[in-house]
């Protein structure tokens, strides 16, 4: 995850409390989504950014996961996300995200 985004996620967690922050990802690949999810839960796996060694354990979802989809106004989802939903390997993304959440999320 981009170093600046890591810094912002860290700041939000400190400001609002980690239990009150949900990170929503839009990565186009399961692996990339998993890496970002790992960064905001277990710490930066590349050991480069502000989240290196910081285990925030934030709640994190991909926008195409069913838990997030049902939060949306269906018209907005249709307008903004449905095309990508057709394109992405949603099952792969759900598997990656679930694995990371099960292992590292502290607030579920």
């Amino acid at each position: 995850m981009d170093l600046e985004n890591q810094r912002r996620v860290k700041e939000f967690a400190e400001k609002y409390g980690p239990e009150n922050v949900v990170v929503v990802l839009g990565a186009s690949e399961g692996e990339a989504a998993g890496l970002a999810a790992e960064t905001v839960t277990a710490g930066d796996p590349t050991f480069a950014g502000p989240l290196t060694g910081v285990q925030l354990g934030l709640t994190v979802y991909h926008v195409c996961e069913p838990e997030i989809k049902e939060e949306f106004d269906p018209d907005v989802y249709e307008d903004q996300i449905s095309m990508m939903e057709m394109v992405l390997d949603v099952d792969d993304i759900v598997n990656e995200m679930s694995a990371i959440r099960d292992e590292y999320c502290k607030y579920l």
Partner: protein
Amino acid sequence: MNAVIKGASYILAHVPGMVIHNGSTQITERIVNPESEYLKQLPEHLRTYQQAVEYWPNQVYIGNKTPEELAGVEFPYYDKPLAGAGRYGKFGEIMPEAEFLLLMQCADVFDVLLLEKGFVAAHRDELAADPVITEDIAARVKEGAEAADIERFVKEEHAEGLYADGKLVGCVKRAHDIDVNLNAEVMHENLVNKASNTLALLYAVRNAGIEKTDVEYVIDCSEEACGDMNQRGGGNFAKAAAEIAGLMNATGSDSRGFCAGPSHAMVEAAALVKAGAYKTVAVTGGGCTAKLGMNGKDHVKKGLPALEDCLGGFCVILTANDGVNPEVNLDILGRHTVGTGSAPQNVIGSLVADPLERNGLKITDIDKYSPEMQNPDITKPAGAGDVPQSNYKMIAALAVKRGELEKKDLATFASKHGLVGFAPTQGHIPSGVPYIGFAREDILAGKIRNAMIIGKGSLFLGRMTNLFDGVSFVIQANTAAEQSAQSGVSESQVRGMIADAMKEFAAVLMAKE
């Protein structure tokens, strides 16, 4: 009439030394984690020059192989060397690091770049033998400096070292003691850009079959900035490179837009030519040191070669309509506006579906799409997937949503209307433009009727806006004959009308008599 694509060039420079010393991933790692395993292992993953030459995607980039031929190669590509591959291709070449360092010196007009005497002596004839390096350019190589002086500049004066085969062979000195915009790192980055830009310009002039004196305007669309503390991005790479290339009748300017830069520049160039402001315009982009080895950590971790070891450059020559070459249709322009939004659906809609709809066309009316053409060999192991394929899936999905494509044809859309990625991950370099050279040839050969070039840019990286950006345009077969045929009909009609009027007038006169 629309401007035409007269020719294009695509060049690479294989620079493994710069991967280690100048790539931003490696620079960052040396700061935050200087003893890391990655930094220790990276040198073992660097490719030799011969390996870079025999790399399939590189051979496609310089025009010796086509994207269609690459599609027939089993993925991944890095372990399938192309036997017998050569340095030179019809679009350009793959320059070795030693010669590129000499070319950087040719591009240096402020004596900030020093090369060691013995190194210069060993390689100056090699550079002079390059078919586009003319005598006046080769003559810019200096005799060389003492190794001890170079070492002193690097150790004591903050100079940026230049390396070949792991040895210090030169340096780029800082151009100012305090101004960070002129420090050695920035000067190095900018000289690399200028030198690769120059090489791209030289090949483009050759490939277009024009004279250097024909070029009237150059637009640089790279992602570097040159200037000083009072004007950080003052410019102008375009004119600076044109000077070294010997384009004596050209002026120019820099156009920026992150990775969307080249497409913006192409539209600007086509408009300048169509408006008659300039008859011949070169759009050029040089290579970027920062992006060398950008995904190196993933490549090393997965046991692959460090595949981001080449600087890329390209140049397209646009001229007034010659009645032959493919033209840029300025009626079909896609643009991501401030109000478009950043959802992929909106982005693809604004760049692909909307401009076509405005012209009564469907997504399937475009024969080939060239969006972000990153080589998947580089991006897939880094978790970024196959970028061109993702784009084709999005375009196809949008076509399905619009009822222009059957859902069952989703899977075959990419092979019919797309290309496999073959460009180095040098930011602006892979963004739409790598296909222009092939598109020109395929349209001239009648293989395709048209192609859409799509550039996209991540403006938010500059922290000035959260907006995304993108612009697209269509290259099509030359329509000059049709247009003059149409205008010919109307001219004869006009003549007929004048003749009729004269007859009537004569009749009136005769009646009066």
